[in-house]
């Protein structure tokens, strides 16, 4: 099969570092489940994940209050354990998080809210963290809601 496109004919080395961006919410989309199974397989293949970035509805994954029925997987908990055990930063986009009611201690105080609900080790930061990955050699993979 031939291509008329001249650019990018090189075959680069396979990517060794992944960034995962999750934009689908748990208990609404399959995105966080698919992303977790993918992430486990990345590490099993001896590759690295430099960061997991939650954007849009994906920030709901960082809730410390999510309490599914006991016979369902607690996805927030499972993701938090995975990140902690493998020392991978998990970052929720601050603009997405504030709109959707996900806040840490600092934001709680800044906006004089009654509680915080961000599950450690998730942190809150700006889109700069995502730009940082996108501009690096890291392979950025998105996990959107399906349908």
């Amino acid at each position, binding site marked *: 099969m031939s291509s008329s496109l001249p650019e990018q004919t090189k075959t680069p080395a396979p990517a060794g570092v992944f960034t995962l961006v999750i934009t689908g919410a748990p*208990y*609404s*989309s*399959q995105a966080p489940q698919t992303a977790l199974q993918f992430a486990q397989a990345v590490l099993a293949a001896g590759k690295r994940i430099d960061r997991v970035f939650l954007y849009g509805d994906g920030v709901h994954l960082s809730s410390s209050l999510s309490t599914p029925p006991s016979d*369902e*997987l607690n996805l927030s908990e499972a993701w938090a354990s995975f990140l902690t055990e493998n020392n991978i930063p998990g970052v929720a986009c601050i603009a997405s998080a504030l709109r959707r009611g996900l806040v840490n201690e600092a934001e709680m105080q800044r906006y004089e809210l009654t509680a915080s609900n961000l599950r450690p080790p998730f942190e809150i930061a700006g889109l700069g963290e995502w730009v940082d990955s996108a501009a690096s050699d890291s392979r950025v993979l998105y996990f959107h*809601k399906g*349908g």
Partner: protein
Amino acid sequence: MSTLIIIDQPPYGSWDGREALDMAFSLAAFDQPVSLLFCGAGVNWLRKGQDAAKVQQKSIERNLSAAPIFGVEALLADSDACGRYGLAESDLLEHAIITDFGPELTNRFDHVAFAG
């Protein structure tokens, strides 16, 4: 006051189907007449041989099979959608009935609702 709950989203990709089922079972639990209609990609909930554990979710096959016992009057599947997704009646879970979607069907109910 009869209700038709419609599921048009495919399985496992969203929670709409599960939450629609909860609505139907709640109505039945309070002795309100209710039927379920699967249409569009939603008919794939009715396919035999699903293994939800593979995507770390709970199966709803047992719930669907028990629907008549819990008082859900009918599990209806839109014939066009079944055709599109290659589903003959023999491919469907027990109790599912293939029917035609349209105003004649929805007019038989006082309430028609989606879960999301």
